[in-house]
């Protein structure tokens, strides 16, 4: 047992750290640190810089543009990326749809979709949830009816993140209405320009518009866009959701937030001392740091175990990462609001259209309350924390 990084791993970490510090524009990375949102162009720019270096799809097999890194290297890469403030390579392409296609799609589909997915020449979005199918995803009702060489899709998806930018959507659709609910589902790739698709943005409680409803009204999709076998889509979806949990601890994101908290808590004052010197605050922060350090070690244990288990198979213990990772991220947003106190109340300047007036609060206060509101999503998406507890109870504890 040696829990320290090897000299090779440290050299790799330094190389990755240097890359993010020098290659991804500071103007983009600073948005994370300052709690502002990325534009589409920020995400595309960062993705393409990583792509040019061959680092946009580290988790893919080498033949499809992967890096061949060990699980530990992949972890180091992601943690350094997150701490740098850079946007991730687009998750819908890299973490979600890509691995499903690599595992289950035909050669023709792989050749057609994967290269443009890797380079972000195509932006993908996810069509899983529906108004009536949240945690009980398999109860989805969007149908795809076979008509010659096409499926005719009707129904509605929701919570489609950044769907407003998407060229393609990967969807779960019902292809057999008679089958038991998990057994009649297929995994279908749909061009967002197809007639009959309508995207409606949903404004969330932070004021942002990152999620959408997507309506399908007699949308005709070529049968060649079916992934794998008809009615086997639930298996592919489970594979995808398992992969999603692996990256979900977001230890690097929380580490970056902790540093920001220390920075702002040294700046903002509480009476005659900085807030960081208030013992109550300092102990609250220390308590979150303990949980984060423990999570980091837990994450590394899961990653290291992957070596023995074989890559690609999600560890049911990764539900621990989801639960703790989300709780810690949410706790950091609360600490930031505690620091800003009453100055977390005003709306930020860039939320107020076209105002030329001087801002009311310090400029770093703007994103803090919205981040608190927005990050409540983390314990809801990717399988709610209650679903994660069900997974632990059944898959790990055998209850």
């Amino acid at each position, binding site marked *: 047992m040696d*829990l320290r990084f090897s000299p090779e791993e440290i050299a790799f970490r330094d190389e990755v750290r240097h890359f993010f510090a020098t290659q991804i524009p500071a103007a983009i990375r600073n948005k994370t640190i300052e709690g502002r949102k990325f534009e589409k162009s920020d995400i595309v720019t960062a993705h393409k810089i990583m792509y040019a270096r061959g680092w946009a799809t580290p988790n893919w097999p080498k033949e499809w543009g992967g890096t061949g890194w060990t699980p530990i290297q992949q972890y180091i890469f992601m943690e350094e990326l997150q701490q740098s403030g850079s946007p991730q390579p687009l998750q819908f392409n890299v973490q979600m749809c890509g691995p499903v296609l690599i595992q289950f799609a035909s050669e023709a589909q792989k050749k057609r979709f994967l290269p443009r997915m890797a380079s972000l020449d195509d932006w993908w979005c996810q069509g899983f949830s529906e108004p009536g199918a949240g945690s009980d995803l398999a109860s989805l009702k969007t149908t795809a009816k076979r008509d010659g060489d096409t499926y005719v899709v009707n129904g509605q998806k929701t919570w489609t993140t950044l769907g407003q930018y998407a060229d393609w959507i990967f969807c779960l659709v019902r292809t057999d209405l008679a089958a038991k609910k998990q057994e009649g589902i297929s995994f279908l790739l749909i061009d967002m320009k197809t007639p009959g698709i309508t995207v409606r943005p949903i404004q969330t409680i932070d004021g942002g518009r990152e999620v959408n409803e997507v309506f399908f009204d007699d949308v005709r999709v070529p049968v060649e866009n079916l992934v794998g076998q008809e009615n086997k889509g639930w298996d592919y979806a489970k594979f995808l959701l398992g992969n999603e949990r692996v990256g979900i601890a977001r230890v690097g994101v929380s580490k970056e937030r902790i540093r920001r908290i220390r920075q702002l808590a040294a700046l903002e004052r509480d009476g005659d001392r900085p807030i960081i010197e208030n013992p109550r605050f300092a102990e609250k922060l220390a308590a979150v740091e303990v949980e984060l*350090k*423990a999570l980091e070690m837990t994450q*590394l244990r899961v990653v290291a175990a992957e070596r*023995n288990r074989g890559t690609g198979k999600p560890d049911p213990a990764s539900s621990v990462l989801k639960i703790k990772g989300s709780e810690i991220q949410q706790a950091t947003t609360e600490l930031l609001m505690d620091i800003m106190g009453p100055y977390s109340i005003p709306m930020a300047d860039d939320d107020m259209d076209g105002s030329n007036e001087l801002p009311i609060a310090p400029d770093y206060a703007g994103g803090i309350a919205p981040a608190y509101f927005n990050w409540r999503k983390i314990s809801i998406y990717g399988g709610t924390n209650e679903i*994660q507890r069900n997974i632990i*109870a059944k898959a790990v504890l055998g209850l």
Partner: protein
Amino acid sequence: MDFDLSDEQRQLKDNLERLMAAEYGFDKRTAYAASPHGWSRELWATYAELGLLAVPFAEADGGIGGGPTETMIIMEQLGHAMALEPYLATVVLGGGFLRHGGSVEQKARLIPGIVSGETTLAFAQQEKQSRYDLADVATTARRDGNGWVIDGEKGVVIGGDAADHFIVTARTAGARRDHTGIGAFIVDAKSTGLSRRGYVTQDGQRAAQLTFAGVKVPASDVIGDSAGALPLIERVVDEGIAALCAEAIGVMTMMHATTLDYLKTRKQFGLTIGSFQAVQHRAADMFVALEQARSMAMFATMMADDSDARERARAISAAKVQIGRSGRQIGQEAVQLHGGIAMTMEYNVGHAFKRMTMIDRMFGDTDHHLARLAGLGGVIG
């Protein structure tokens, strides 16, 4: 980065697991606790035969040259069995003072007895007023010719009722809470002027209250610098906390596993109670708490012998906080999910809960270490 045990370490774990399964059933443990010393002399001899008592000592001193990982493995197994033998007091703490501060002569005099199982030690530090402050020492040691004379009282000396020697902290200079002017002394339990009152602890272990009335100690029994022992004391205690964290993992693992077994067999309303989601989620939360604690016990093990005292302190305090929180949650939930049966002295979960609760009170509780960690600037770099 490697979380796997070596073949030798795995063997150590397996051997000890087998021994504990055979020798530490509920009834046997009850009998050991009721014996005069409150633990098994026979098993202690077996530990010696297996080399467990030699593990952390250098080969040159008659030991095996094991590191913190070996100590972690042993402590976790002892915790899992809720073993009563004074391994922490003798090998980890007493042995720690000798390894890190002992002279060649002191090592040669004491380590062979520890390794053979003939000698047990206890760390006499806790005083009425000191709580968890290692520098708060009112017991005095004044010079007397070449040697020293110790006066004062030590309250909660774990393993102290049967120990052959004590490692005693005493003030040689300065005011009560000064960080300098503290010495560490080896004191023979049979010394004139030393009286001991042994007692049983909440978790069924043994401890002692010691009174020193003009106890003479020769110069050869001072460990290191007679006025500058605090860094040594802190180092040994940090290692002790890492070992205690590993023991706690064993205790928690046992409580969680026992609870799961119970949830799968106990029936109410015609169903196993583990089929109820209200219960499942609590068992899942216990699992999360256990894994987080296990991670931090490993982290503490990794940092226990770090030469940077500040980094070590941050890691050890962070680990103790996590262990304290997870331990409280798992202990209370284990009792709650069992219901009445865990309220009895006839069932192992209640005993484990008591042990876990006392571990939180040793060498600084959760609040103490949270404050210490906050003062050190946290644990995220």
